[in-house]
């Protein structure tokens, strides 16, 4: 800076008449009317039967169903992500046997309906009445009746988790491929081995690409768990159906269940936001403030202004 810099005043900001946006006002008017109609319908139409929804919305059975849905979602996603990472690494392995095995797994589990997979696991006994552990084609050490071995929960978990693994494998593979080859070379030049490079260098950087679709998958999984009501397994939709089977209030009860699903996916979206922020380290220079930080900053900016006026 030259010595003249402190003499120089900041230039007068431009005085500009902002452009009018009549389209925005028109759109707002249309949407306001539509919204008013919707609120009116929700509030006045007795067939939504809000009292009924409130009456059953928090009964022990529904609360149990919500918890079971959450627990099943988490468990199935853990199975899906762990197995998906293994399958993705297998698909990118130099070993052709592993590569092809992973391809076949994905082909089968992605190519058949998940409801069928769940039902097959639930009725595995129809295919294999007894399951045993022992020498292949030889004697068995332990053996058990399949129906007693596979509970409703294990059938649900196997059906959802193994299907999810096939999708997660492709998501993880896309993430691994998104990492520049130079990262492999630089790590290899340090003397790191393939497993170390994957774990320490490539996977952490792939996470940026992996997390958003995984959040998508988790939200999708939360709702797909409703399929296991047909196993049958007592999650949220199963409990809801049990209620309307007695009360015949089908649509209000399904709306109530949907509100629960919506609430749970909203929480998942918040979790996803923070996970994405974590893995953005090193790829954006300055992390944007979280909504919460923005609110706090605005409050703090306002406070001294209040002081000025008083």
């Amino acid at each position: 800076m030259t010595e003249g810099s402190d003499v120089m005043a900041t230039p007068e900001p431009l005085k500009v008449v902002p452009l009018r946006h009549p389209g925005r006002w028109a759109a707002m008017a249309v949407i306001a009317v539509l919204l008013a109609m919707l609120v009116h319908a929700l509030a006045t139409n007795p067939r939504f039967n809000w009292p009924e929804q409130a009456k059953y919305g928090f009964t022990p059975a529904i609360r149990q169903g919500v918890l079971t849905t959450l627990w099943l979602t988490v468990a199935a996603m853990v199975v899906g992500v762990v197995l998906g990472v293994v399958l993705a690494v297998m698909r990118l392995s130099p070993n052709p046997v592993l590569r092809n095995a992973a391809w076949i797994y994905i082909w089968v589990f992605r190519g058949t309906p998940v409801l069928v997979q769940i039902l097959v696991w639930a009725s595995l006994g129809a295919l294999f009445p007894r399951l045993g552990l022992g020498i292949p084609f030889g004697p068995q050490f332990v053996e058990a009746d399949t129906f007693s071995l596979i509970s409703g929960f294990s059938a649900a978990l196997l059906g959802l988790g193994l299907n999810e693994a096939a999708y997660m494998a492709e998501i993880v593979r896309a993430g691994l491929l998104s990492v520049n080859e130079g990262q492999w070379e630089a790590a290899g030049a340090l003397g790191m081995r393939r497993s170390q490079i994957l774990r320490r260098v490539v996977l952490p950087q792939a996470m940026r690409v992996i997390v958003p679709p995984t959040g998508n998958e988790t939200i999708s999984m939360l709702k797909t768990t409703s399929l296991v009501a047909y196993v049958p397994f007592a999650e949220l939709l199963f409990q809801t159906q049990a209620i309307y089977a007695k009360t015949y209030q089908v649509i209000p009860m399904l709306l109530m269940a949907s509100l629960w699903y919506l609430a749970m996916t909203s929480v998942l979206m918040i979790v996803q936001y923070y996970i994405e922020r974590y893995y953005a380290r090193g790829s954006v220079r300055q992390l944007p403030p979280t909504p919460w930080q923005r609110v706090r900053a605005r409050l703090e900016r306002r406070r001294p202004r209040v002081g000025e006026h008083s």
Partner: protein
Amino acid sequence: MTDLSTTASAPAAAMVQAEDVWKSYDNTPVLKGITLQVSPGEVFLLLGPSGSGKSTFLRCINHLETIDAGRLMLDGELIGYDERSGRLYEKKPRDVARQRRQVGMVFQQFNLFAHRTALENVMEGPVQVAGLAKSEARDKATALLDRVGLADRRHLYPNQLSGGQQQRVAIARALAMEPKLMLFDEPTSALDPELVGEVLDVMRQLAADGMTMVVVTHEIGFAREVGDTVAFMDAGVVVESGRPDDVLLNPQQARTQAFLSKVL
């Protein structure tokens, strides 16, 4: 083939020994019989137009590429293979990694680990590969970053550093493994002209400390000043090699003359 013998030292003493090295990609030969030798402590510069095979040859020394024919040895040991009773056996990944540890490599695009700070980048090798304790590795990495003039930037991520700073971190990262040989693949080609000097300064210091270096570069001034040997490559062969002043100021081959007249 051209005459390539540059130094008269015994083969056993060579840090890098290449004998008639050939390499093709999809039947297109890239290296067509490279024979050269790099002695310990020597600064060996590879010059030549793009596509001449100099980067490929450099990558062969670190086994990032495999060779098709000939022999390539690091400190008296075949690179990537074991020789037993006249036959070549592929080295296990573990042994390839062990061999690579002895060679530091610096890339044109820096290739710093983007999710780790400068300090963590330099610590990664010592902790993960050499098995150093974290505190020890941190001290070592801090000292190395100080040596390349970046001690105050050690907690920044690569994308918060300039290109020249990133490349200096990359050099520190390679040095952290205490290599006996450093490979530089066009280390200043991706840098703004203003930032080239700071990287060359670090390399100059490294050469003065007696590090054996093989450098692919277009920096003729640096080559003349720091290089012990210059080899000019074109179309997969070494056209001419010798002392920098001889090759760069008084080139004998027409191809070398033509190249230098454009670069200088």
